[in-house]
């Protein structure tokens, strides 16, 4: 990980702290209102523990309170419109599916699939309107994303269908309440913030799931691109190709040391033919990898240093005398085999052997 030597913003931390404190306080208030036993202990750890079990017991109650706190006056209105939307469930779902088709969204899915997902989304949407709770919605949105991302559904499609649903339901509300504009306004006052929050929740869940998938793929690629290979007993080679950054270098070191231990390697060849440039941080990581290998009894040869890279290392003040470097991989392998005892008599060079 490349770290700027910047410290976390102390103001940020205090802000976060007071947010956490405020949240803790409101939890406590909920608990006492329901006269659940809370030890008036000084130790804040105990309070946290109680809060957690309190929360589980009163999850439903506090959710209702939350929903109530947010749109207290509109609460009966939400109930009213939710009841109506449920009544018209079939029609609305059909209308929505039709508009999805019209807008050419979810092309990768069959009509049946679209319908079944639409049903689930609709029901979850209306539930979320009713309860004001986005937790269930988040869970559903994540699961939905897990299903459709591998199918190739794009972000704009997901946002698109959620907004279409919002429109379909809004139109329906307009149609029903158009006679009484004051009532309609109050209905919309209740509906709009809830509907918008739903759209954001679903969109964000989808994007976050995508990010998670991309991360996983990147990890997998990284693992593949720093393989440590055993080419002979006790002789490992680690070819490095491409961009070598701090986090990759760290991963490389871990893999190398684990391989030394697992293969009981005596000699390691690190080949950097495929690395174009190295900066100071990475050079340090390499040196540390070599030194750590030595502490595990393995000698390291660095091969494939281009004149540019060699010069860069020298300029960076890297002590190349601590490692053995050979210009090309072939020469390096030969020397490595010799060191590992595979070729000819062992040299009597006093820098060899398992000296730390």
């Amino acid at each position: 990980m490349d770290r700027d030597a910047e410290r976390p913003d102390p103001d940020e931390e205090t802000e976060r702290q007071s947010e956490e404190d405020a949240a803790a306080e409101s939890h406590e208030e909920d608990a006492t209102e329901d006269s659940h036993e809370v030890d008036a202990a000084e130790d804040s750890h105990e309070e946290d523990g109680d809060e957690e079990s309190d929360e589980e017991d009163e999850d439903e109650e506090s959710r209702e309170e939350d929903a109530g706190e947010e749109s207290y006056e509109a609460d009966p209105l939400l109930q009213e419109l939710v009841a109506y939307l449920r009544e018209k469930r079939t029609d609305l779902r059909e209308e929505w599916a039709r508009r999805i088709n019209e807008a050419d969204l979810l092309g990768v899915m069959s009509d049946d699939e679209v319908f079944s997902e639409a049903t689930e989304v609709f029901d979850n949407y209306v539930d979320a309107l009713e309860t004001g709770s986005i937790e269930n919605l988040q869970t559903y949105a994540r699961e939905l994303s897990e299903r459709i991302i591998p199918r190739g559904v794009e972000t704009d499609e997901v946002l698109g269908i959620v907004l279409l649903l919002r429109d379909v339901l809004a139109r329906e509300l307009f149609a029903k309440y158009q006679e009484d504009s004051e009532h309609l306004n109050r209905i919309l006052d209740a509906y709009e913030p809830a509907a918008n929050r739903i759209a954001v929740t679903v969109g964000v869940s989808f994007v976050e799931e995508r990010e998670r998938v991309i991360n996983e793929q990147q990890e997998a690629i990284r693992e593949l691109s720093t393989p440590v290979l055993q080419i002979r007993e006790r002789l490992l080679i680690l070819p490095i190709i491409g961009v070598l950054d701090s986090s990759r270098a760290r991963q490389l070191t871990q893999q190398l040391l684990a391989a030394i231990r697992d293969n009981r390697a005596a000699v390691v060849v690190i080949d950097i033919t495929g690395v174009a440039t190295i900066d100071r941080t990475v050079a340090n990581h390499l040196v540390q990898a070599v030194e750590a290998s030595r502490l595990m009894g393995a000698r390291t040869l660095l091969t494939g240093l281009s004149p540019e890279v060699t010069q860069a290392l020298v300029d960076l003040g890297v002590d190349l005398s601590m490692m053995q470097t050979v210009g090309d991989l072939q020469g390096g392998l030969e020397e490595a085999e010799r060191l590992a005892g595979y070729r000819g008599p062992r040299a009597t060079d006093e820098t060899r052997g398992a000296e730390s």
Partner: protein
Amino acid sequence: MADEVRVVIADDADLVTARAEARAIAERLGFPRPDPTLIATAISEIARNIVVHSGGGEIVLRPFEDRNRYGLIVIATDRGPGIRDVEAALRDDYSGRGGLGLGLPGARRLMDEFELESDAENGTIVTMKKWRYRDELARLREERRRRA
């Protein structure tokens, strides 16, 4: 979020405890290797200082997290006589034998952030932090934020 852990440091047996607790909490927080070992090693040095140079103290291991990062704050306090020359103590090769003196420069190298306050009245407080980005995207997010 895991709770904080407090280790009393009175004698050298407590160093064993401190090392074990440090590794345990680091692993619990999800630090990838070799971080738990690095953290435990740094804490070992600081804890020994407490035993050797003061009558005793304590070490608090406090997890923290924000949107992009997670980490551990280590706060080591003692009521000893304080370090007379803090600057020298933090300089490498304080004891003249490859930094094997107070171990402070070494501990600093193992952690991401390191602060030390020391005087005869209040003793010594060492605050160290180690943290990680949650993932690549969090790192990018954080870098963008800092550049803005």
